[in-house]
């Protein structure tokens, strides 16, 4: 029980870390490869302390790793740590996508009906 709760909390916290919109942007940039913090500052257009704060959260959940390269610190995504988190959100996303796919069908029918009504008047 305790173990289950701890694991659930970890997933939830990790999900928070990657789901927050700014961190989603950082993820998107790092998906293109390793980057120093300055690149992230430029690409996101926000101040370095904020970027560092987001990176700290991402590192805490293992979503991002860092290594020293000379005088630079390079950040990169840790795909393996992200997998369960992606699974968590993607399933929720998928259930809505399936619902919306059905809604698309209903909307097509409504559009056809409306077009038909218009021409008969």
């Amino acid at each position, binding site marked *: 029980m305790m173990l289950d709760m701890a694991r659930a909390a970890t997933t939830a916290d990790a999900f928070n870390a990657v789901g927050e919109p700014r961190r989603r942007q950082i993820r998107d940039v790092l998906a293109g490869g390793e980057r120093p913090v300055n690149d992230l500052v430029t690409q996101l257009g926000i101040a370095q302390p904020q970027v560092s704060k987001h990176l700290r959260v991402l590192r805490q959940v293992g979503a991002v790793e860092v290594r020293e390269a000379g005088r630079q610190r390079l950040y990169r995504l840790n795909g393996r740590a992200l997998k369960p988190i992606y699974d968590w959100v993607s399933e*929720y*996303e998928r*259930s*809505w*996508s399936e*619902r919306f796919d059905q809604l698309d*069908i209903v*909307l097509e029918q*409504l559009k056809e009906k409306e077009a038909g009504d218009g021409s008969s008047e």
Partner: protein
Amino acid sequence: MAAVSSGTAKVTLPTDTQILITREFDAPKHLVYKAWTTPELVRQWWHANRGEMTVCEIDLRVGGGWRYAMVAEGFGEVAFHGGYREIVPNERLVTTEAYEGIPDADANAAVDTLTLVEVDGRTTMTILVEHPTKEGRDGHIASGMEAGMQDALDRLEQVAVSLS
């Protein structure tokens, strides 16, 4: 293929207690609103192909209530209800949403804000789901995963049966 899929739903978490769902539709907003608020139409899409909708009640007025239920394969009945707080036809709906599968469903109800914005005949829908607590929010997302895993297991079983 009568219907053109307009893309996948995008889910983000603006704060610890919120879920934000965004999706674009190839239809004007008054039709999206109609499909969203007319029981006969809701019955056609809300099930997401995961079961059959057994209850669809909509009393579309401020102070009025709604209740949806469906029987999902291998998952039993799931039911939700809530009340309309704010109604701007074709543009905005604010409702509460209680999942009847948890204790104190009404005390733990989320507040959902639906917004429809139309540009050139296409409509962007956003649904902001705001839970009273982070635990409630996390549980909401996790419940989607459980249902999905059940789906996956069912599919796996079908494949296994077809192979045997």
